[in-house]
């Protein structure tokens, strides 16, 4: 597809990077020459310097033939104008980032009136993601597939788990729940586990299955899946507001600690049922006074990565069950994970991922068959959702008779709204949704999982 990205900030750059490796034609527009020259040096994209909302620049970027225009500059209004003009000039689809809370209740109207195909709000997306993590406290990461019927959960194996020292093939026989082990990360290496695989403590594991099965699975492992009830948030940022809205709706109690007095007053206006504490969330005394040990979950959302890290470490040390922290700089991820904090949220990363999913779905309607594509384990493995169509040359063949490529795993099949966790005797039928895990790189068609 031909894609124009306006704004080469972190999100724009990440998008350009990912989409250009997925074989799209990317044109990047920004008014800052320095960021553009960085992009020009490192990415296979075309760079145009100028204001993305100007007709002349958009024409230079060949907007008339563009399939998609993504506006992710710093200004909400600029993004809107850019998309409106782009659409008028012939862009087929437009995506705008609109993050100001003032607009958050007007998305429907904005989408309609400005003919936007998608509106993204990084803070709201991040809040969604955190809420999902809090609902599944045992997992460090949760992704959903097949219209939310399937869940893929990431967790770290502990010494006490009943997984250790058993071979995978024996384990699957004993399991009371139908789940499938998709991928394991051990010592920086990604493994697609085979029958003879044995789990070690500290392995990062992905399992897929229905929500109830995954709960059963966790119970079998000897972990209580006790739901979080009392949540402490430090930092009254926009994400905190969105998150509190969501959490209040599902009946959790939220306490926000914020340093700035004026901000506290504002928070109290928007979140009338929430306890707002004015204090320094990185100060251990403040945290102790608020009885941090008793909280079920701790979420660090201040603007500074370092403060989030320190206060999260303290909460972790105090024995808080679930600690989620926001980290802006992606290169901090591995360091933070080493410290035992697995649940990390990065709004920019989430935004980029959401747009990527949209693009892939759009691309799918133009021929290729991937419906959803997730990157897991620090982008080193991929989970792709396909719909099997008659052209695929692997229909109605027992899976054990298929010659799959190395490191490819068919992890779930959805047929008539029922989920099949596949074994050797299962097969794929026309119209099935198939979820495939690979570490070999981008697969654009279901037939590509077969050995050539």
């Amino acid at each position, binding site marked *: 597809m*031909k894609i124009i990205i306006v704004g080469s900030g972190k999100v724009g750059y990440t998008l350009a990077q990912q989409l*250009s*490796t997925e074989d799209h*034609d*990317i*044109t990047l527009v920004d008014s800052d*020459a320095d960021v553009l020259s960085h992009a*020009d*040096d*490192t*990415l*296979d*994209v*075309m760079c145009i310097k100028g204001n993305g909302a100007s007709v002349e620049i958009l024409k230079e970027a060949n907007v008339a033939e563009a399939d998609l225009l993504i506006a992710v500059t710093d200004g909400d209004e600029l993004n809107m104008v850019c998309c409106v003009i782009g659409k008028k000039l012939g862009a087929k689809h437009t995506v705008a980032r609109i993050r100001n809370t003032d607009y958050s209740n007007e998305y429907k109207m904005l989408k309609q009136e400005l003919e936007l195909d998608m509106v993204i709000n990084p803070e709201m997306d991040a809040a969604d993601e955190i809420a999902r993590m809090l609902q599944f406290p045992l997992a460090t990461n949760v992704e959903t597939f097949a219209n939310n019927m399937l869940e893929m959960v990431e967790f770290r194996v502990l010494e006490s788990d009943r997984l250790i020292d058993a071979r995978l093939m024996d384990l699957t026989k004993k399991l009371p729940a139908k789940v499938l082990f998709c991928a394991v990360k051990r010592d920086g290496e990604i493994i697609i586990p085979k029958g003879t695989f044995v789990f070690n403590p500290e392995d990062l594991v992905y399992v897929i299955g229905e929500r109830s099965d995954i709960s059963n699975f966790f119970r079998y492992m000897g972990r209580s899946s006790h739901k979080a009830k009392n949540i402490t948030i430090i930092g009254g940022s926009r994400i905190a507001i969105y998150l509190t809205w969501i959490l209040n709706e599902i009946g959790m109690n939220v306490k926000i600690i914020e340093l700035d007095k004026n901000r506290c007053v504002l928070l109290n206006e928007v979140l009338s049922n929430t306890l707002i504490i004015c204090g320094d969330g990185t100060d251990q005394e403040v945290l102790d006074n608020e009885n941090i040990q008793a909280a079920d979950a701790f979420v660090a959302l201040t603007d500074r990565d370092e403060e989030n890290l320190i206060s999260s470490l303290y909460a972790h040390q105090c024995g808080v069950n679930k600690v989620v922290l926001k980290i802006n700089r992606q290169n901090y991820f591995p360091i933070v994970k080493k410290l035992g904090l697995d649940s990390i949220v990065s709004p920019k990363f989430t935004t980029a991922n959401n747009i990527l999913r949209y693009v892939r779905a759009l691309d799918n309607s133009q021929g290729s068959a991937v419906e959803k594509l997730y990157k897991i384990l620090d982008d080193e493995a991929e989970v792709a959702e396909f719909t099997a169509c008659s052209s695929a040359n692997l229909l109605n063949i027992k899976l054990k008779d298929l010659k799959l490529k190395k490191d490819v795993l068919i992890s779930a099949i959805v047929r008539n709204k029922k989920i099949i966790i596949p074994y050797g005797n299962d097969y794929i039928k026309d119209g099935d949704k198939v979820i495939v895990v690979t570490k070999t790189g981008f697969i654009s068609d279901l037939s590509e999982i077969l050995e050539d």
Partner: protein
Amino acid sequence: MNIKVVLKILGTVLFWESVLMFPSLVISIIDNTYEIKAFILSIVCIGVIGIILKNLNTTDSQLRKREGYASVAICWLAMSLLGALPFYLSGAIPSYVDAVFETASGFTTTGSSIVTDIESFPRGLLFWRSFTHWIGGMGVLVFTMALVPSMGARSVFLARAESPGPSFGKLVPKISETAKILYIIYGAMTFILIVFLIIAGMPVFDSMIHAFGTAGTGGFSSKALSVGHYNNPWIEWIITVFMFLFGANFALYFLIIKGEWKSALRNEEFRFYGITVLAAAILICINILPLYNYSVTEALRHSAFQVSTIVTTTGYATADFNLWPMFSKSILLMLMFFGACAGSTGGGVKFIRILVLIKSVAYEIRHTVHPNSVQTVKIDGKSLDNDNLKSIMIFFFSYVAVIISAIIIVSLDNFDFTTTFSAVLATISNIGPGLEVVGPMGNFSEFSDLSKITMTACMIIGRLEVLPVITLFSPSIWKKH
């Protein structure tokens, strides 16, 4: 520097070099001449080295600017050293230094030759010699990029180091697509030229040889008298026009294909190029009228051809301009310095840089008169920032510095000044013939080995526009981290 990545790229390039030798092998098999064995041996030898290097295992395949620059310089050096094998192994050129000179002259589209009796060469070798022009014209790494899209996003550094001109402009977002488009335009134009030459009455094989030389703006001919051999005005005019076309920026042709005639013709560099060529041709025409019995058609035919061949740094000849008046020679010498346009297949300083330098001088003068005036140097309505200006001036200085150093080395051979100076200028600007001893009817065989090596280096330095080669001499580039 990550040497393994560089070697991997070198492997890919060498592999393709051996593949590109096949047509020459086929011709020599058809003719059943003595160089068959030499070709087979070279193909196997280069191919094996290429495949071994290509399949090196690397964990860190990151290509940074320094690896990009170093790869391009090393690739061109290795290509010339190994591409000389057929000449050397077959015994057609007994000295290896001479064979390398000839091959480097081919790849860099210089067209300077040390061969005294070219017409005795078998057709296979002649084909290889001219085919190197065609490959080198648009660039080998650009060629591999078009074929091997997996070279990655950072291959933009390779394209930048290899393609002539101050900046490498992408035509479409993907670099491999850009490379493909460039080669399609290049190939199509070459094909049209071959057809035209055949229609004008040139034998098929000669048409190919001369089309390769014209397209790459190289200048190797299969005849001792070059294009003058045919003494056919049609052929000369066709080649004149095509040399001019191959000396223009290929991005303009892409614009024309897209239907944007106007913006192509409005391009400042192209206008400057066109006007300079036209003015030079007319001035020389008037100046040489007496030599051609006041026949304007004759004089114009020769002046246009010579201007076109020199300005595009091709180096064909239809007349011995050594015998022309000093004024004409001076104009030609100036054009040697200018070179063709950025993004073309030609060499030299490039018109765009000359234009920027002239504008900078004008700007400086205006600034002296009005010290508080605020102005920028603009090309095509867009102002250049200081980095661009700086890099053009640095390029210009280093170019002149290389010329001066080379002249000092070559002067050890004790030729007259015009010969020494024009020989160095002709090689670094990738033109081919110079003046006096190395004039259009002479050749470079009389120089010593040291001078030949110096001039071989000049050709590669000139083709890659100095910096990629010079960076190789920086000790810090060779350090591991």
